[in-house]
């Protein structure tokens, strides 16, 4: 929090062809921007000199220095002579230091585009992004071909480590979340169905809902947050540590080495996790049915199993398979295209999750339409 004193201790005196800036006592935390503007306002064409006068003692901080720096630059712009000699030596030195011309930054000129220019630049950006993504997908497919023809340099141990991470270690969270989702689904459904006295159909509702789509979606979201982001962070950090450069100069294909084990592991694990989620969701539903709605246990499972439909179940599993592909591709792509500092690892991680979720929704839409068309 800054408190800006209105009565600044700095006085600006205009005297014919010269402007004098003076103060006495301490100058701490002054409003340098306003004061510089006030000084600049005094600089008319007739002014030939800018002078400063200051007490040798007295405290000051960078805000005073910033006033001096700003005023001197302003004077130089107006071709006004500056006299610093009445300032304490240390202040003079600091102003000279700040004004010393070093090499100018060369390439940070902000290019100003017009409206059409902005559209053009945006289009080029999108085009390169699309190009890069397609290139990456192509590389992954070539790498998969190499894998299936046993020419890949993927290390088995990397695959096992990835599988361990997205399989056994993810079981707990997936089970818990899908149990709760089943619970919620049953509860929300029950409130409606009770009004018709049809609460036994909660069993069908939960079974169909979980198996067809909810199981896969929940697993997808968990794994995007848990595993996809970890892929992006790990690979992004390797970029920062120059490990990706090292791989490249060693001639090891990055995709074989980093993407393939993660992709295969997740694509393998996701359908299995989806099955687990379906099952746990049904248990969650049964929990509500039996304990809250007082439905008989056998009755509940009879309806649940009646509603179970292999086609629905397979559609759910297929979703899981696709999501596994999407999550690992998004995670790895964001990691590989990560910048070279710590900040960009954070950006890559965020992007991987957002992209994965968006593409999962898109794919779900596409699969749903296709299923509609072929009548599944």
């Amino acid at each position, binding site marked *: 929090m800054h408190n800006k004193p209105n009565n600044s201790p700095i006085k600006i005196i205009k005297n014919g062809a010269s402007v004098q800036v003076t103060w006495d006592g301490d100058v701490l935390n002054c409003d340098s921007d306003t004061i510089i503007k006030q000084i600049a306002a005094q600089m008319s064409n007739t002014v030939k000199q800018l002078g400063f006068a200051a007490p040798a003692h007295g405290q000051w901080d960078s805000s005073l220095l910033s006033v001096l720096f700003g005023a001197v630059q302003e004077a130089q712009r107006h071709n006004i002579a500056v006299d610093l000699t009445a300032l304490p030596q240390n202040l003079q030195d600091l102003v000279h230091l700040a004004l010393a011309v070093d090499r100018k930054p060369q390439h940070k000129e902000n290019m100003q585009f017009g409206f059409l220019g902005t559209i053009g630049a945006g289009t080029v950006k999108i085009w390169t992004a699309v190009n890069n993504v397609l290139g990456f997908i192509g590389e992954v497919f070539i790498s998969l071909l190499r894998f299936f023809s046993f020419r890949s340099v993927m290390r088995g141990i990397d695959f096992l480590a990835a599988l361990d991470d997205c399989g056994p270690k993810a079981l707990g969270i997936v089970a818990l979340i899908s149990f709760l989702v089943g619970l919620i689904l049953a509860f929300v459904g029950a409130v409606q169905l009770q009004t018709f006295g049809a609460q036994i159909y909660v069993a069908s509702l939960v079974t169909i809902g979980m198996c067809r789509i909810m199981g896969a979606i929940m697993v997808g979201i968990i794994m995007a947050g848990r595993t996809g982001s970890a892929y992006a962070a790990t690979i992004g950090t*390797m970029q920062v540590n120059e*490990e990706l450069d090292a791989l490249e100069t060693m001639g090891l294909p990055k995709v074989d080495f980093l993407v393939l084990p993660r992709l295969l592991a997740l694509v393998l694990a996701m359908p299995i996790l989806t099955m687990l989620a379906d099952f746990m969701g049904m248990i969650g539903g049964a929990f509500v049915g039996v304990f809250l709605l007082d439905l008989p246990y056998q009755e509940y499972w009879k309806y649940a199993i009646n509603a179970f439909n292999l086609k629905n179940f397979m559609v759910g599993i297929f979703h899981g398979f696709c999501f596994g592909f999407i999550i690992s591709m998004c995670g790895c792509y964001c990691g590989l295209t990560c910048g070279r500092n710590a900040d960009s690892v954070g950006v890559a991680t965020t992007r991987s999750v957002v992209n994965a979720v968006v593409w999962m929704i898109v794919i779900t839409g596409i699969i749903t339409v296709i299923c509609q068309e072929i009548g599944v």
Partner: protein
Amino acid sequence: MKKEVQIDVKDLTVGYGDYVLLHDANYQVNKGDIFIIMGGSGCGKSSMLRILTGLLPPLKGQVIISGVDIASAPAKEVQKIREKSGILYQSGALFSSMTLAENIMLPLQQYSDYSPATMRELAALKLALVGLKGFDDFYPSEISGGMKKRAGLARALALDPQIVYFDEPSAGLDPISSRNLDDLIIELNRSLGTTIVVVTHELASIFAIGNNSIFLDAATKTIMARGDPKELLKNPPNQAVYEFLTRGEKK
């Protein structure tokens, strides 16, 4: 006796997109040289190294290593050049999920057909060469920064390279470790005849190890001076080079 040229850089322009760092650079690195690339901060030394190692395409010109133009040659030939060069990155760039021995065995697995046991032996040997005997099963996170650099060097040496590139080998090392690394570089050069390219600003290293150099200048975007650094100090071609080599003394 005329020396054999190992790296031949012709009319090379270094930069990113429209942003040019260096115009039309020409220089040669002879076989068996310890070649220093020096210059002020931001003048493009690391970028130059990225071009030599094929990580960054040149904006213009050619980089010919052992007779192969790395920008235009077919991938197979470039691959062969890469197998024969080792790189020590600024941070070591060890793969953190692998032990030191596994790091060193990785290029061996890729490019040689030694048995796994032989590879282990070789990895142990390379680690011993850089003074890390017995650290085979340590992970990179379990050793210090200086040790990581040395382990990185062991990995760079895995395939008995003809050229080794160093990016600021002494950055972040204490004076003794830095000196030891210099000695190691000289030893490698002498006993194996390895050509060595070093990017550094460490004056002590420059004079201790270098026998040829180029000095890049950001203002003129050219190679401002070249030759043995000790000679350059004796007869500095201009003020900028003199100041650099004497830590900013005015002439």
